[in-house]
């Protein structure tokens, strides 16, 4: 469904990606693992259309993301992708409920439908009680669960997760990860996650090892 082919990207003299390739199929969970500086996150951002590689292509169901303009890639992210980062990156001024509702609202989903979907996710992730609090007023684990809910709310085709459990303790890590995988599988959503935690990588269907900007199985 989504494939990155021979991606190359340099930051000045530093080569971040050197002919790196990876694919992910519908409903599949793929973990990008490797040491720090190996290019995992850069690979993820290129696959998500957040960064444009110097060469190579990223194809989603036949469409080359690297050829799309900025607005088209924004539309794609809004419609088809979801994101979870190491720190929840929620909008600080909005409550958890409103944060989760945000992608639905951006996609023009009706209010009643939005409310129902958000309520379902809040319940599923066990953060109903914190729903009307702002991110600064909840724990890191709760905020990260809200971030997962926000990533999945609009039923994207792919969720990109960059160290989604990196800032959490082991117990919260597993809760968040399990929730992410479970909810993604319910909608047949693919997940690409970056991690250096073997426990997290073990939950993936497939692992792509990265070293010095190259990827391999």
């Amino acid at each position, binding site marked *: 469904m989504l494939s990155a082919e021979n991606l190359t990207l340099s930051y000045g003299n530093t080569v971040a990606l050197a002919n790196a390739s990876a694919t992910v199929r519908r409903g599949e969970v793929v973990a990008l693992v490797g040491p720090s500086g190996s290019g995992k996150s850069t690979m993820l951002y290129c696959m998500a259309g*957040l960064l444009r590689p110097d060469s190579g292509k990223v194809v989603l169901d036949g469409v080359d993301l690297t050829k799309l303009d900025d607005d088209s890639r924004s539309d794609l992210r*809004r419609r088809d992708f979801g994101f979870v980062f190491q720190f929840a990156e929620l909008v600080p001024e909005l409550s958890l409920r409103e944060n989760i509702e945000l*992608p639905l609202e*951006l996609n023009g989903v009706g209010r009643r439908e939005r409310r129902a979907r958000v309520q379902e996710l809040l319940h599923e992730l066990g953060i109903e009680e914190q729903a009307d609090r702002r991110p600064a007023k909840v724990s890191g684990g709760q905020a990260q669960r809200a971030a997962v809910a926000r990533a999945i709310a609009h039923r994207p085709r792919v969720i990109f997760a960059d160290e989604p459990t990196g800032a959490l303790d082991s117990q919260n890590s597993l809760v968040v990860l399990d929730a992410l995988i479970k909810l993604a599988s319910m909608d047949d959503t693919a997940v690409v996650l970056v991690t250096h935690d073997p426990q997290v990588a073990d939950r993936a269907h497939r692992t792509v090892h990265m070293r010095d900007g190259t990827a391999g199985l």
Partner: protein
Amino acid sequence: MSGNARLAVRLVRGGGVAGIVRLALMIVGVAVGVAVGTLVVVLPSILDDRADRSSARLPVPTVAAGGRPTTFLFALVDDSWHGERFSRVLLAQVDAAAEPPPGLERFPAPGEIVASPAAAELLATEPGLAARVPGRVVAEITPAGLLDPDELFAYVGLTPEQLQDGSEASGFGVGFQDDMVRELFDGVPRELAVLVLAPAAIYLIVCGRLAAATRARRYAALRLLGMRRGAVLRVAATEAAIAGGLGGLLGVFLYSLLSPLLARNHALGFTWFPEVGALDALDTTAIVLVTVVLSGAVGALGLRQSLSRPLAARVSVEEPRARWWLLVPLTVGLGLMLPVIVRPLTAPPGSRVVYSDTQVNLVLAGMVLAAVGVLLAMRPIVAAAARVAAHPAAPLPLRLAGRRLSGAPASVLRVLAGLAVLVLVGGVSAGVLRDDELAAGPEVDAFTVTVDAHRAASAEVRGRIAMLAAEHRWTVQYSEASPPAGLGPPESAAERVAMFGLAMVTAPCTEIQVLIRAALPSCRSGGQYRLVDAALVGTADEVPAGVTVTFEDEVGAKVSYRTPEAVLAVDGLERSPLHVSSGVLVAADRPLFGWGRDVTMHFVVAEPESNVEEFKSAVLALDPTAAVNVHMRNLGAMEAYRVHRGTISTGVLVGFVLGAAAFVISAVDRAIERRRDVVSLLVLGMPLRTVRASQLFQIVLPLLAVLAMAIGVGHLAGNAWLQLNGRHQGWYGGTLTTMLPLAGIGIAAGLGAGMIVVGRKIRAEDMRRE
């Protein structure tokens, strides 16, 4: 270089683009503050120089010269040309040793005019003006003899015979400062200081606190690492001092560009010689040192929280909630102003309302309270606007803006307060200036001109002046007055006449009837009557019949006169253009004792005001020494009005531009700090226009709320002031025409700042926390 200084330099250099931008803004901020501050500090010396120049050219009367002989005669002519003062000194040399006045190479000979460059140019191009000054321009006065480069001033050489009645003098340059010149400008530094330095201070604080959260975290981290309090303070102080020093230097440079411009362009309502305000090397060094020390101190003082509670600096501080009682002062202030504002709407047109002292004090207190109230009310007003915007049903950009605003930091309110105060001051100033303008020169249909030609060469000249074409004319001559024997008031009407003299008004019956706007059926041509205001009949102010007084005839001989029996009681005589409440009327064209030196001639000249200039030219062409006074046209008050208008207008404008700049910089700084939030929204696929719209709402919404409040209060307060003084009829819209452009500048600046979305280009580093 010490370790702390090295660390500070590394921190300045290592801040990346954002750090360099911040440093640049701080340098510019300090520079602007230094340039404006220097101007305010230098202004008093510029004004002192002006007063000194004025003193240096004042003739020293022989009686005050301590035995020095008379070398010339002089007379001062205080004239004006279309509202601009054009002073002339008439000089007649009586001793070859007479020293020339400052700015002249030699004493002007009879028939010679030495004029300022501006006056020389006017005299060459305006025949009407040239007619007032006898002779030809032979030279120009150098800057040493002028108050400013645009001054209209001239020395006119006459023969001693032409200036018989002139004062004797021994030289030029009185040993004291010319207070009149100094007083005219006294308020200028104070007004500029208030209007410009306050926003400049806000601007500096905003620039000094750029990226405050980031820097507080950085210094807190140094503390957590174990760096001592003093060492962190020194690092912060050095970092700020670097910006301060560079800003100081740039500020001096900016001042050296700004000062000559201001000196020449009347921006402050007057001009000066640029070299007077120039700075030397010592001044420059002192200014840079002061800015280095002050910036270092401010930089260190801003770190109290990071140093005392390093952990607290790492978390965001929640702003206090808006309290509704903060609206009380504004409400009370408006309530106190309301009666004055409403009164003109209910009072009959043209009527003048007189307010008691208590009412005046209450309204003034209301104005102050309303101004303070605007500042206090900002938090609840902004909070209310935010609450409305944040309504769940509101569009997403508005809702996001509302949410961000609900915790509007104090820094936002501080900057908004600066803008609100300046708009408010602009509105009130417009009212005050309008009142000053009306006080200096009210709008009239006709002008009363009084001519005192006692130095005229002959009675015939006075007679010719008296016959100049005018709408109406009359003369007044006072009898000799005897100084009072005691300190008490006169005990009888006769004693009063003897003490103060008797006013003899001469005019044909037809003229008098027009002037007093009443029919005088008993007035006969050639008749003599006692003239009295109807309200004063039978009082000690009524001139008694049969009293003998002494007048001077046109050759200077004493003539006795006995007051007549016949009387004319006139309603409202005191308020008529005659400006006489009681006296004697001679119903004739010509004064009873001829054109004596103490006969003052009065004329009514119809509008437009250019007619008055023509009339003055005609008078002065006949007698260049005549004193021509136009009633309701107070030259000094008009000059003061122009200076105040220039100072306040420039001050408000410069202050507002500084305030708007502070507002923009602060908004951009917050946009930079919000970069990661913007990136998260863009990653979610939020369109850039939605992000931008949200930011625009966030900036413009509180600005609109606060400016609307300031404009409303400024308009009411400006009009309240006008109503209190009663010179302006009805509502004055000038307050709005002053405030609306200012508000427009603020809103345009806000819109510009809101368009800048920092983080629109997604970078990998923005998706990772530090």
